[in-house]
């Protein structure tokens, strides 16, 4: 019998293999956050931000935000590969094996999440190079990183679900913009709560990107572990979006 872990590993390896063969995508997805970091950093570091604790600059504040933003942007595009796999018929073929659709999805999402976390770490390293400062509190960093991982998995699943539903590159591009920009600008990735108008601050509070950014930033800047509630909500979101993507996977099997 096919072991589910075996399937997860095989699909994850395949996802990485195909990604590494497209260095252009990797370069852009690393270059883009660096540009954001530099532009926003230079643009806003002169403004006094009342929300920042003493001793912190805007660049310190921005680094975890842009690092999480990298995960969001990357995750929302994760499904694009599967549109290609639908067009070549390879995904339906994979789904018409005894391997469970859940394990195939898990392999894909695991590979994407790990790649995105590496990118988030790389962006953070670049931010340190341009002067951002972080605190190294290992326990808090691990649990903050877990929140980032759950967020990466959740939005990779959402992207896969939308890709399998839309089945066209064009619709996918619309989705990416429709999701990325509003989520980014109604979150605390770039701007602290207190700098926002009241209604926006209210929206930001329920934005999953805010949950993630706050967890990640709290760990990086203050050595503070995220609340169990935040971690739990992100886990719940990841589980719900995984279930959503799985439904679309099962539907795609009939395309073989």
């Amino acid at each position, binding site marked *: 019998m096919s072991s589910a872990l075996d399937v997860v590993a095989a699909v994850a390896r395949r996802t990485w*293999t195909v990604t590494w063969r497209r260095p252009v995508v990797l370069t852009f997805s690393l270059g883009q956050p660096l540009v954001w970091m530099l532009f926003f950093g230079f643009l806003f570091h002169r403004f006094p931000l009342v929300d920042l604790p003493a001793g912190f600059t805007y660049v310190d504040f921005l680094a975890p935000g842009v690092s999480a933003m990298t995960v969001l942007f990357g995750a929302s595009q994760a499904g694009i590969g599967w549109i290609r796999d639908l067009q070549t018929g390879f995904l339906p073929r994979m789904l*018409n*094996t005894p391997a469970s659709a859940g394990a195939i999805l898990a392999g894909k999402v695991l590979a994407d999440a790990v790649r995105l976390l590496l990118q988030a770490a790389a962006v953070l390293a670049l931010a340190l190079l341009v002067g951002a400062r972080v605190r190294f509190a290992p326990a808090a960093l691990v649990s903050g990183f877990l929140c980032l991982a759950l967020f990466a998995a959740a939005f990779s699943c959402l992207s896969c679900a939308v890709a399998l539903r839309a089945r066209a590159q064009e619709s996918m591009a619309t989705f990416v913009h429709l999701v990325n920009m509003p989520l980014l600008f109604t979150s605390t990735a770039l701007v602290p709560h207190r700098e926002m108008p009241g209604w926006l601050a209210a929206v930001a509070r329920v934005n999953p990107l805010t949950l993630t950014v706050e967890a990640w930033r709290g760990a990086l800047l203050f050595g503070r572990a995220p609340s169990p509630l935040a971690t739990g909500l992100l886990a719940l979101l990841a589980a719900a979006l995984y279930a959503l993507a799985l439904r679309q996977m099962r539907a795609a099997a009939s395309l*073989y």
Partner: protein
Amino acid sequence: MTADETSAPSSSLRGVSKEYPAARVRALSDVDLDLPAGTLTALLGANGAGKTTLLRILAGLLAPSAGTVEILGVHQPASRRAGRELRRRASYISQEPALDPEMTGGEVLALLAALYGVARAERARRVDELAEIFGTTAHLQRPLSTWSGGLRRRLHLAAGMIHDPDLLLLDEPTAGLDIEGNDFLWAELERRARSGRAVAVVTHDLAAAERHADRIAILEQGRIMAMGEPRALMAEHGCATLAELFRRSTGRDPAVLAPRRGREKE
């Protein structure tokens, strides 16, 4: 394997019909068909005769509008668990190759071996063996995007056999294959049938069907017009060739089956 086991039906259809209401097409009408283990069956017919529909129903990929379907002893529709077990033992090889052009041939075969649950220790041997059988060994390390259409089709066939299926269903596997590829394929299909598997091939190649198939079924407008051992059928209908039998059963010129050339996507 005893004679009894070889003649046991691997899969059977009884009174199967299939309608596509949206297109107002009746693709199959009241079809009875057995695919015994240990035999190679060729399904013949003009375009639109219902061959692919029949094959997809036999694979459990398509539900019939009426009739009963039993695949490898499993009544359809199967439970999710039975469906998985069926996919482990059966293989449907589509007409169009379904491969990832960005992976190498070896990577595709190894991945599918893992998905089919082939034991880890066994995978490399299966990959090498099938690559050898279909003459693709020299190309395995290259991305499929650099392979010719015919070579890709050979890999597509190899991939469908990586789990050594008990039931092998192939939809026009010879389209786009060169003579060498054709020879490799028919030899392998015969070998698998001899070793007790049930093999069904949709083909337009009457000569190959006459040479290699143990049984043939001739379809016309969704009905089976003739079915049985080719020589016995020809004798029964007083036909000297399979082409003549085809004309007699369908009322069509066998030339409609002439293999299409140059349709392969590059």
